[in-house]
């Protein structure tokens, strides 16, 4: 049963130095064309399920003009939405105008996710983004006035030359906005990004961890729940859409470069706009056998601080996880915790979770 849907809008007014997502500069006629093919893709694949989450990501969806946004929402309106739907759109502060916010409201969007990243000038220079503290404060105020009560902002840290001091200011500013959800990302210098090409280097990993701990402790002290490696929320505001990934649930993914997980197949769409505009959506399809599915269940489930629900696991796969992976030694070495029939990575070791997951996968019987 598919209850979740991701829609990708690959257009941006500005390309950030660190971004390796699927994106391109905004061009009005190209967007119009894109929406036509997006509609065709959705119509050809969607099977009428009632959806509980829709997430419009990018790129920068808010870079579309009002007319294009309205067209997009009308296309999405053909999808069958549950009355308790979580309906999110991403954007940046400058292009998320009052008119657009009113339009979002009109079409039932109830969650906003905004790229804030940092307010420090040096950080912004490296990230090649622009931000204005006052504008951000005003926009958040406006969003709340219009009636949005589920707002996320993204924070990026571990930026070259960043200090703990700089990070603390960023955190304090975000806390002052009093929003419901915060995603924090340690900067990854990916290949094919401007940062990589300009030979930027990651900061020292000890400092990186210190920053992560600073974020976690501060946010927790301010009543945010740390529920996933990079995500924090107030009680009741965890992102249902993101959780569908970590719980290994099915989801549709429409648009350029989008991914979907349907009927044991993980499908990644093409990142080539010319192919996409020729109805050649699919780039790669991974057919999963039961071993793969269980491997995904572990890799994804251990991202959640709460961990993997072993009862649910048994219900799903008719087998106990311990009979597939012998993780007792990892528990003895305090690399995993078994509590209330949840298997999880201790919070103080979440930052080395890859190492632990690999060890777990190696313990396959």
């Amino acid at each position, binding site marked *: 049963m598919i209850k979740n849907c991701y829609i990708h809008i690959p257009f941006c007014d500005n390309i950030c130095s660190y971004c390796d997502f699927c994106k391109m500069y905004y061009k009005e006629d190209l967007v119009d064309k894109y929406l036509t093919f997006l509609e065709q893709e959705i119509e050809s694949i969607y099977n009428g399920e009632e959806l509980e989450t829709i997430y419009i990501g990018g790129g920068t969806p808010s870079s579309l003009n009002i007319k294009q946004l309205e067209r997009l929402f009308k296309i999405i309106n053909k999808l069958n939405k549950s009355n308790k739907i979580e309906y999110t759109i991403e954007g940046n502060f400058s292009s998320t105008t009052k008119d657009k916010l009113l339009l979002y409201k009109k079409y039932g969007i109830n969650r906003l996710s905004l790229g804030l990243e940092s307010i420090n000038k040096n950080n912004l220079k490296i990230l090649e983004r622009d931000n204005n503290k006052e504008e951000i404060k005003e926009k958040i105020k406006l969003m709340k006035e219009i009636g949005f009560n589920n707002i996320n902002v993204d924070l990026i840290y571990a930026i070259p030359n960043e200090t703990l001091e700089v990070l603390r200011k960023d955190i304090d500013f975000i806390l002052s906005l009093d929003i419901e959800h915060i995603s924090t990302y340690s900067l990854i210098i990916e290949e094919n990004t401007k940062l990589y090409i300009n030979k930027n280097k990651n900061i020292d990993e000890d400092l990186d961890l210190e920053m992560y701990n600073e974020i976690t402790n501060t946010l927790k002290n301010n009543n945010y729940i740390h529920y996933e490696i*990079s995500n924090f929320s107030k009680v009741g505001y965890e992102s249902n859409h993101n959780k569908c990934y970590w719980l290994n649930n099915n989801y549709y993914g429409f648009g350029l470069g989008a991914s979907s997980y349907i009927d044991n197949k993980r499908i990644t769409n093409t990142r080539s706009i010319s192919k996409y505009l020729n109805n050649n959506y699919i780039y790669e399809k991974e057919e999963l056998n039961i071993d793969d599915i269980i491997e995904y269940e572990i*890799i994804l489930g251990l991202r959640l601080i709460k961990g993997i629900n072993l009862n649910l696991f048994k219900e799903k796969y008719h087998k106990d996880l311990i009979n597939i992976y012998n993780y007792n030694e990892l528990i003895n070495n305090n690399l995993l915790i078994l509590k209330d029939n949840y298997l999880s990575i201790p919070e103080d070791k979440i930052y*080395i979770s890859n190492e632990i997951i690999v060890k777990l996968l190696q313990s396959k019987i």
Partner: protein
Amino acid sequence: MKEENIRNFCIIAHIDHGKSTLADRILELTGAIDKRELKSQMLDSMDLERERGITIKLNAVQLSYKYNNDEYQLNLIDTPGHVDFSYEVSRSLAACEGAILVVDAAQGVEAQTLANLYLALDNNLTVIPVINKIDLPSADPDKVITELENIGFDKKDIILTSAKTGVGVEELLHKIIEVIPSPKGDRKSKLKALIFDSLFDSYRGVITSIRVVDGEVHKGDIIKMMETNAVYDVVGLSINNPKEKEVDVLRAGEVGYLFASIKSISDVHVGDTITLESNPADIALPGYKPMQPTVYCGLYPIESNKFEDLREALNKLKLNDAALTFEPETSKALGFGFRCGFLGLLHMEIVEERIEREFGINLIATSPSVVYEVELTDKTKIQVDSPTKMPKRELISKTYEPYVKCSIFTPSEYIGPLMELCQDKRGTFINIDYLDTERVTINYELPLSEIVYDFFDRLKSSTKGYASFDYEVIGYKESNLVKMDILLNGEVVDALSVIVHKDFAYKRGRLVTEKLKEIIPRQLFEVPIQAAIGMHVIARETVRALRKDVLAKCYGGDVTRKKKLLEKQKEGKKRMKQIGSVEVPQEAFLSILSTKE
């Protein structure tokens, strides 16, 4: 062919001076092969040889050439071009009456030019000096002519060639016939044939390359190897022109291949003499000496279940390579492997590379060791070819290590840095020979272990690659040697132990621990790295605990990428060796060798 019309010769040169290309051109000019067939460097049959530009195994080609209306048989005997194989070189020289000494018109005379020349003169060969690559823009034939005059050649005897364009090659062929003496064997006397190479063919067994010196050998003869006393029926004889052609007889003066269903290469020693069992020669040809490995290292499969595959690979290589020795050994750290002996470092590298490439076995090679001699307190002497075989300190009364005489050939401007290097390597200065005002040979006595360590890299870097060197083992000298252990997380890793001179142990210890710190990835816990002599720790570094290994951002449901990343990480772990609780990458075991100072 009557002996007067036979010429047996080889081509000798410093590496990369164009020996193989010149051989190709000669093959082409004598019509042995046409251009179309000419894969570059026809004589080097192994891929690895062609890639590295090194001739590893010997080969002989028979060519026919008409000169002044007379038919001549030219036997071109190829020789390996590296010091590790100098014994093989000397045996193939012994199969010739003449040698073509090739010198690069741009590079001029170098260390192996001289080393090979002296070997040729030792074997009483007539040497034709050739300056090759005169087509190069950087060629300076006049300068090279002067250099050759300085080492005793007459200007009028020097031939200028370009193997690339073909210039001078015809002239060279004429010169070969004119100046190289024909063989002077006695075809009626008892058979004496020199084995100058052997190779293993999976259908026909060991094939020997022979030069008949006296008498004749026929298909069906029963032969005897004079050194090993092995007796065999001659199943076939052939020549290579350069396609193989069977013949019924090989007579004195001729060169060819002999096969006799020999299954074990240990029966066939390069340098041995073949005679007839029924009518044996009284004395063997001179110059035979068994090959002794000078460098040893442990080879271990990364995946321990590949141990038997490794044994099979070594056995197969051994069929072609009598100089390779190996015996099983066990390491606490690495499990089951083999202690292998090699003629030198290049030989070692080639064997390792062939095992990885041709047999698909991933290897861990431990740091190479020379063979030390240890005199115990009870006056007995033992040989130690591996640090693990070093007796406890209290049992040792004296230690000895092998020394080499090393000749470094260099532009004179680098004399200073090179002497500093040799001094640093515990060398004893002998003398400096001036070839001319710009080029010198510096002679030193050095411990072989220092050459095995990083001498070559440092020689190259301190002379911008202009110096070349050559060495020969001269014997053992007393030396204050100790075994230095490396401990990871408090445990001795036997495969990382080395034998070093006591005065250099601190420096080595520091370098090795620093290097290991770079190579060993952070683990879940802090890993101390220590160098110790006995119980005494002389250097320490720490690999800090892993702090970050997480994929923070998982974008738009693209979890496939995350899984691929983790799979890669899992694969990466397969290339690590688990030693105690520490995961160690395979490079660590060679790091002891490659520590740059």
